[in-house]
């Protein structure tokens, strides 16, 4: 009896936590199409007006394209650097493993305020603040650990026998890598890239330091707007920003699904072959 009660209590608590996590975000969506200029609740009527207003103000579009550009470029750079590092971590030997790992994971731990200030001080010296390159470089630091984590997980799961078979059949190590290993970890690289993309797309604290009149990313522009006055266009832009993230996760989920299905197919063909 107490057991049933405990379970019920736990499930109720989890449901409340779930509501606490999800509801605030979901509330943005009805607010962004509500026909009330003061974001009152409950939402009244239905209008695309706030989205239309976004279209009229070119600075939103500018900030959004800047964000997309920075996020895409830093995702690409993260994938290249992160995949190479993952290969070294899983397959290679190198000295100072402990300290090196600490450096690689440090961007996950150091508070973004500190990263922002430090990079701002350094980039001022070399004129990289308010530039796409500057943004890409610092966002790559923040995104690259996720690529590493994902690709490492993929590499561990790669069946080394396939590689050996490929080498036995006469393929060199390089061609084996590109024909066997790389395709196997491609979904993990994609997932890592999307995580890096989201990290950059969302990132506001470091970006506040780096932004200026010449280059401002979307989160910084939203931040500035929220500080001045809360209006429905901010709800509209928030909805759009959320949709981008949801889209990324759909792709990641799809990739995982495809990977799992392929693995299952290989497994079943294995057993029939044996």
């Amino acid at each position, binding site marked *: 009896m107490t057991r049933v009660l405990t379970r019920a209590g736990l499930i109720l608590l989890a449901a409340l*936590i779930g509501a606490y996590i999800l509801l605030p975000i979901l509330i943005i969506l009805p607010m962004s199409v509500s026909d009330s200029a003061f974001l009152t609740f409950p939402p009244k009527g239905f209008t695309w007006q706030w989205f239309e207003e976004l279209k009229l103000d070119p600075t939103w579009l500018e900030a959004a394209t800047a964000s997309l550009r920075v996020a895409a470029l830093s995702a690409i750079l993260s994938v290249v650097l992160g995949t190479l590092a993952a290969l070294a971590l899983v397959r*290679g*030997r190198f000295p100072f493993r402990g300290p090196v790992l600490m450096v690689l994971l440090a*961007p996950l731990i150091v508070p973004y*305020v500190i990263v922002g200030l430090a990079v701002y001080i350094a980039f001022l010296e070399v004129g990289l603040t308010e530039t796409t390159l500057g943004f890409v470089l610092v966002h790559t630091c923040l995104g690259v650990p996720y690529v590493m984590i994902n690709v490492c997980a993929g590499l561990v799961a790669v069946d080394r026998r396939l590689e050996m078979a490929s080498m036995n059949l006469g393929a060199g190590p390089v061609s084996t890598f590109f024909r066997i290993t790389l395709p196997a970890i491609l979904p993990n690289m994609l997932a890592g890239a999307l995580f890096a993309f989201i990290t950059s797309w969302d990132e506001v*604290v470091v970006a506040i330091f780096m932004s200026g009149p010449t280059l401002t990313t979307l989160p910084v522009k939203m931040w500035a707007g929220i500080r001045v006055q809360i209006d429905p266009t901010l709800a509209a832009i928030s909805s759009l920003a959320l949709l981008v993230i949801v889209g990324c996760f759909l792709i990641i989920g799809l990739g995982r699904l495809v990977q799992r299905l392929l693995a299952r197919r290989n497994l079943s063909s294995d057993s029939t072959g044996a």
Partner: protein
Amino acid sequence: MSLAQTTGRGGAGRRSARPSRLRAYFTVDGWGLLILPLVVFLAVIFVVPLGMLIAKSFTDPTLGLDNYREIFAESLYLKILTNTFVIALSVTAVTLLLAYPYAYLMTIATPVWRTVLLLLVLVPFWTSVLVRSFALVLLLRDTGVLNTIAQDVGLISEPFPIMRTMKGVIFGMVQVALPFAVLPIYATMRNIDTRLTKAAQGLGDRPSGAFWRVFVPLSMPGVAAGLLLTFIQALGYYITPAMLGGPKNTMIGELIVQQVSTVLQFGFAAALAVLLLSTTFVLLAIASRFMNLERMLMGRS
């Protein structure tokens, strides 16, 4: 994730028990060289700026400890430091209270529900802090959703102030902090041998007794790690307290940004950052005694 087996001192490192242990340690093979691009990149873009920051805190505007002295001389700054600790502690306490039963539910749930619970708790980690804080403003302000509903159903007659109070800051920050507590606690709980609690019951203990006397103590390393990680994260928050808190709830992150953006006191801001950074690393060193941090961080996404 199984990554921990391959990093750290597993795999390659173990072979070095031969006479030339030192030489084995310094061995680099072809794969190992691939670590270089990222290490060089992070050294230049991440480590060097942190070094410059530390240097700046001792040299700008004058050489010496003036910036640090200023932090501890001014009562306003001391108050902000205390604030930061109080808020971070409260956030940690609330987060742990929610995270422990949540993580326990994850260990006893069916695989499908476990995945659902895991994905749910990761939502705050992957949705923009900014959008989430903005949503909370809409929810919590005097004319916001909660107050409107509560007034409509007659629960309260006047709007209940949550925005610009510490309650609001904590309400917003706990969301962001949840994954940092749930994940390490769950990771520890998952590895507790269920036969131990069964044995306790077999020896005559009640199920609740077995839970409190066997399961809870065994889960403590995870709780300790979760506590420290949550606290570390909470110390450095900027967006949530700046949006949901009032002038009385200023935290060190906001002070740092203020010092740079409004009064251009780089050296002083750098000193504050160094203070925060060193606190972070000390706490992290303590946390690593309780748990394999590398494994935990790696298992986070």
